[in-house]
Structures are given as structure tokens and as C-alpha cells.
């Protein structure tokens, strides 16, 4: 702890807002909802100061529609919400996936379903983030487990959305959104900003969905002089509806191909004490905090336990598990839901290790002691 470092007390939601600004977000449209409200509150102050736009919309359907429009107009656009609002956004989220619009949705999860427990933590929206909108589509979902990561993952979310022309979801639980911690954020000059690739051919040659070698098509902003068509129907490279099976195949497979190409880059995973581990706790969000604390006790008790920390939930980083499966006897998956990532772990595990889940859906979080007890119970 160098004394020259300047520290501040910062809340997770505050860090998301700071991350959005650092990544160059210049448009926010949203409707306030607990426990995400601080993000809108802060950006309402800071965006206009910096030449950006903030709009409070009539609801979350309007919010996502507005950020899609802003993104097509060339802005880096973000919205923040919680479960009930995220449900309302699903239809337009699908539109943004098919039309390949770079947007970022921050969902600070609260306990559901429906209005649920508005101020209590949960990780119940993991599957909704993956499959909430209909139709087969790829999606990138990042989940921070500290205030610093609330900042850095928001920056990454904006960058990934621009790079892959795809919606990115920051799925944060209430514990991370509302906790305050001592942080020191990197200076603005240190932060990488990725901007979408724009067309450089004459407008009459431009085909808005003609993929470049990277798998992503250059994106012109409305108003730049490139006239083109955007639709929620399956479309050809010119952006016009098509029912031609080959063109339909290219359209949908193209969506998957671009994310598959970036799979390793978008999969954020960290490993702690895994070198000699015989047992692993696989955790994300606030459960990482409980797991780390439990690890201290378990290691002191002489148990070889490590942590696989998922920063990306979707696409599911299966390699993180596959790499360690040969050495693992047990994997423990604590979640503030009935076992949503647990199923993914089962799928990848394919019967190799014993998989144990710890679940909590009462609006409180799983404590380190509960993890310690579970692990000791299994290992003995």
C-alpha cells in the first residue's frame, strides 16, 4: 500500500457509472429502479457536463429503444436496470442482437421473480441474461465481483459491444452494486477504448451486413451519408428481409461466428490457489467474496481448495473448468439462485468430478462459514 496512491470510497454502482464515462459512453436512457438507481442518478449529473445525453424514459421498453437509436446514430450507449426492467427489455434486446447494434445493459439483480424483494441480493437472472429474448442468438454477459471490477468490466463491456457489434450485459448482484470499498481507479490515459469499425468505401458500395475478415461488418452511423436498412427480420447483407435459406443461414451463423472468434477474449476468468487444488469453489459476483474468505479457513485446515472465479458467464468459459477437471475431486458452486450456473458446470464436467451446489433464494447471502461447512462435509 504505497502512500502515494490516492484512495477513495466508491460504491459498485458508482464504479459502473465511472466505467461508462471512462469507456466513452455518451448516451444513457433509462428508468430508475432499485438497486440500480445510482447509476442513472450519477450519469444524469455527469453526462451533460461532458457533452453527453441523459434521458429519463417512460419505461424500460422506451429505454432500450432509445439506446438502440443512439447507438445507430453513432453514440456509445448504455442503460441500467434491474429484473423487472430487464424483463421489459427482452424484445428489443433480440432486435439489437439480430440487427447487430452495440449497446450495453447493466442489470443490477434483485430477488425475483416479478417485483420480488426489491432491495435484496440475488443472482436469479443468469439464465434470463442468456435466453431471455427469443430465438437462437449469442450474447456476452460479464459479472463483476468487486467495486474495481464494476469499473473495469463496464469498460470491457462497452469495448466488446463496439468490437463485436453485439449487445453486452453487465450482470451485477446487489451486494456488489451497493457495497462501498476503498479503491484506486486507473488514470483515464491508461484505459483502452475500442471504437466500432466504420465504413471507408463510397456510400453506394456499402453493404451494412457484409462481414469483413474479422467477422464483423463495418457500421455506418445514420446521418453519415450511408443510406441503409435495419430490420428485426432475418436479412441479407444489404439489410433487407430475406427468406432465402442460404442467406438466412449466413445471417444467423454469422452472429455466432463473430462471438466464437472472440471466445477467448470475452471469457474473463481468474484462478486462485488452483495449482495444487483437489477441490474447487466455482463462484461469480458476491459469492467470490464469500468463497475467498472460506478459502482462508479451508487452507488453514490443510484442505487443498482453490477458486475458479468467473468474470464472464456467457458464453460459458468451459475451458476454465476443463483445464482443471483432471486434478479435481470436487467442485462446489455457491449461487444466490437455485443452481443456474451449476447446470453448466454439470454439463462441462460430464461425470468426472463430484459437483455440489449451495443455493440461497431468501434475499440474504451465503456466508463463508456455510461454504466452509459444506466443503468440510464433502471432503471428509
Amino acid at each position, binding site marked *: *500500500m504505497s*502512500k502515494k496512491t490516492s*484512495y*477513495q*470510497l466508491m460504491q459498485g454502482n458508482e464504479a459502473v457509472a465511472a466505467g461508462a464515462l471512462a469507456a466513452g459512453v455518451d448516451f444513457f436512457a433509462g428508468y430508475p429502479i*432499485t438497486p440500480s438507481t445510482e447509476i442513472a442518478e450519477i450519469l444524469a449529473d455527469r453526462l451533460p457536463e461532458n457533452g453527453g445525453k441523459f434521458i429519463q424514459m417512460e419505461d424500460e421498453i422506451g429505454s432500450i429503444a432509445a439506446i438502440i437509436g443512439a447507438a445507430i446514430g453513432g453514440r456509445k450507449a448504455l442503460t441500467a436496470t434491474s429484473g423487472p426492467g430487464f424483463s421489459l427489455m427482452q424484445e428489443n434486446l433480440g432486435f439489437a442482437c439480430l440487427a447487430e447494434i452495440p449497446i450495453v445493459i447493466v442489470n443490477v439483480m434483485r430477488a425475483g421473480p416479478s417485483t420480488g424483494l*426489491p*432491495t*435484496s441480493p440475488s443472482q436469479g437472472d443468469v439464465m434470463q441474461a442468456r435466453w431471455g429474448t427469443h430465438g437462437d442468438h449469442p450474447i456476452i454477459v460479464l459479472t463483476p465481483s468487486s467495486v474495481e471490477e464494476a469499473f473495469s468490466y463496464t469498460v470491457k463491456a462497452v469495448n466488446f459491444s463496439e468490437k463485436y457489434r453485439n449487445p453486452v450485459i453487465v450482470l451485477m448482484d446487489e*451486494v456488489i452494486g*451497493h*457495497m*462501498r*470499498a*476503498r479503491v484506486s481507479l486507473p488514470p483515464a490515459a491508461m484505459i483502452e477504448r475500442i471504437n466500432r469499425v466504420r465504413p471507408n468505401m463510397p456510400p453506394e458500395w456499402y453493404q451494412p451486413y457484409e462481414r469483413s475478415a474479422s467477422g464483423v461488418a463495418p457500421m455506418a452511423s445514420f446521418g453519415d451519408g450511408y443510406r441503409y436498412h435495419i430490420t428485426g427480420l432475418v436479412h441479407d447483407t444489404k439489410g433487407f428481409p430475406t427468406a432465402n435459406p442460404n442467406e438466412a443461414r449466413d445471417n444467423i451463423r454469422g452472429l455466432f461466428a463473430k462471438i466464437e472468434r472472440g471466445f477467448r477474449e470475452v471469457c474473463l476468468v481468474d484462478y486462485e490457489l488452483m495449482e495444487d487444488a483437489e477441490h474447487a469453489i466455482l463462484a461469480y459476483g*458476491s459469492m467470490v*467474496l*464469500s468463497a*475467498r*474468505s472460506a478459502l*482462508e479457513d479451508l487452507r*488453514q485446515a490443510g484442505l487443498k481448495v482453490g477458486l475458479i472465479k468467473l468474470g464472464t458467464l456467457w458464453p460459458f468459459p468451459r475451458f476454465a473448468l476443463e483445464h482443471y477437471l483432471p486434478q479435481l475431486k470436487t467442485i462446489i458452486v455457491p449461487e444466490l439462485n437455485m443452481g443456474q450456473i451449476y447446470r453448466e458446470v454439470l454439463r462441462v464436467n460430464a461425470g468426472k468430478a463430484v459437483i455440489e451446489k449451495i443455493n440461497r433464494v431468501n434475499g440474504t*447471502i451465503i*456466508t*463463508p*462459514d456455510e461454504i466452509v461447512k459444506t466443503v468440510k462435509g464433502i471432503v471428509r
Partner: protein
Amino acid sequence: MKQNRTEIRLAGSGGQGLITAGIILAEAAILDEKNVVQSQSYGPEARGGASRAEIIIADGPIFFPKATWVDILLTMSQKASDQYSFDLKAGGIFIVDTTYVNQIPTSNALAIPISARTREKFGKEIFSNIVALGVICEATKVVSIKALQAAVSARVPSGTEKMNMEALAFGKNLAREAIKNNNGVIAEAIEADS
């Protein structure tokens, strides 16, 4: 491994300013060059529901952000006293605002009518949370008074700094008086802690 971890819980009703007090205490800890995490829990109501702020202060890294066995507990409602006094560590310090707590669950508590005395002194209860911070500082020394003064000044609306400094000093005095007049148990606990 978990020595040097001090867990503090401030609990009462929404509107008493306990979350603000928690933030200020956390910022004071940073000024004291400690590591800190602050979290909160509250109901869906704007005011009147149960409200709770927790602060973990440590020299090293802090993993679990919530309090489990608390070293310092301040309660400003009967419900909070009933609910949380069981979570107090042996040797922990329990401060009760008797303005809103009629039945104190243990004799091992520093009982002070914080809100009532604040009302008498300042004409309104709005400073109760800052007075409570003064009480906590004097009774527990969990943060330095210098850091607390700086943190309060940085958080409160401009123009109210002087009143808030008075509120802190008033709280420290309340604590000193109470410790002097209190039974031996609590004084001993505080003595052992400092």
C-alpha cells in the same frame, strides 16, 4: 488471519441517517490509512423501515463484505436492538440510543439517549447520526477524531460544517459522561479494547 478485522453495525430505522453515518465512518477509516468495506441493507420504503449499515475495517485485504460477529453495535430502534444484540462478539461494544429503545437486551451496553439529547441541544434530531459518530469515536477509538472530523466535513452540505463539528464534540462528551456514570462492565470492555 482475520485479526485486525473490526466489524461495525449501525442499525435503526430509515431516515435516521445511519447509512450516511456508515459512509462517513468508512471514509474516516481510509483517512486513517486502513482498508474498509461498507455495505447496507434496507427495505423498499423511503423511510421508517428497518435500515442497517455495516462497516468492516482492517489493515489487510477484506474478503467477505458483511458483518457476522460484530465488534461494535449501535442500535437506534427497539427492533434493531432485539434483532442484533445476539450478533455482538464477546467483549464487543454495544451502544444504544435509549430515545428509541425502551428495553435494552443486556446490561452490558452503553445506554445514551442520543436522539433526545441531540434534539435538546440542536433543536432537531437531524444531527443524531453525527452525534452518534462522536459517541462511537470516543467509546471505541475505531477511527481517529481527526479523520472523523475531516470525513464529516467532506460529506455534509456546505455551510453546516461548524454545526456538524459541534455535533461530533457533543457526541464525544455524551460518551465520556456515560462511560463515567456507567456500570463497571462496559467501562472495562472499553478499557480492554483501547
